[in-house]
């Protein structure tokens, strides 16, 4: 099956710093989503981005499907950005929506 690897596993930033999170995947995908998991466990949708570039406020994401990676950029980080960031992919012609998750990047933003 497909492998999804996220890096770095852990990241500590000072408030106001910028960061880049990476997601590598081992096969062609037809779905790619980035999520932020808050301390209570809720997965918050950040981007649905199987290809291309999107921006939403201080966050942006780019997926280069041909090279099998996606990047999540966080600019001017805030303490509320802390939490775990997951990349999840869907793949295969028979797939009806199953998502394969990476292990996540744990971000801590210090004031």
């Amino acid at each position, binding site marked *: 099956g497909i492998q999804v690897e996220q890096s770095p596993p852990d990241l500590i930033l000072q408030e106001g710093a910028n960061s880049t999170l990476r997601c590598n995947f081992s096969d062609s995908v037809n779905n790619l989503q980035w*999520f932020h998991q808050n301390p209570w466990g809720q997965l918050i*949708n950040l981007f649905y981005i199987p290809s291309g570039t999107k921006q939403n406020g201080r966050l942006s994401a780019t997926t280069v499907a041909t090279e099998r990676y996606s990047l999540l950029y966080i600019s001017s980080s805030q303490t509320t950005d802390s939490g775990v960031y997951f990349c999840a992919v869907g793949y295969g012609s028979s797939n*009806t929506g199953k998502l394969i998750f990476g292990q996540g990047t744990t971000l801590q933003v210090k004031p």
Partner: protein
Amino acid sequence: DAGVTQSPTHLIKTRGQQVTLRCSPKSGHDTVSWYQQALGQGPQFIFQYYEEEERQRGNFPDRFSGHQFPNYSSELNVNALLLGDSALYLCASSFRGSKGEQYFGPGTRLTVT
């Protein structure tokens, strides 16, 4: 616009017991997927329901079963609970079993003692 809802929020069960978790999809969605998230891990796909049928299944034993109702809500049942079943159970909804964007509920935290 109602998001995905799950109940209960927390649950404590004893080994060998059975448990039922519930999920209502986001308004306009008709497909429900269930995931198990162990501590420190990413969510793992259990199965997906669309048109009241199980469409895809992950690598989980038959102790894990589900159901989808005509109003698109869904239940996850786990029989003969093991300590290793302790986890956060997440429900996700999407439209027409598609490869489109999925939205997750707040989860049910199950503890097996």
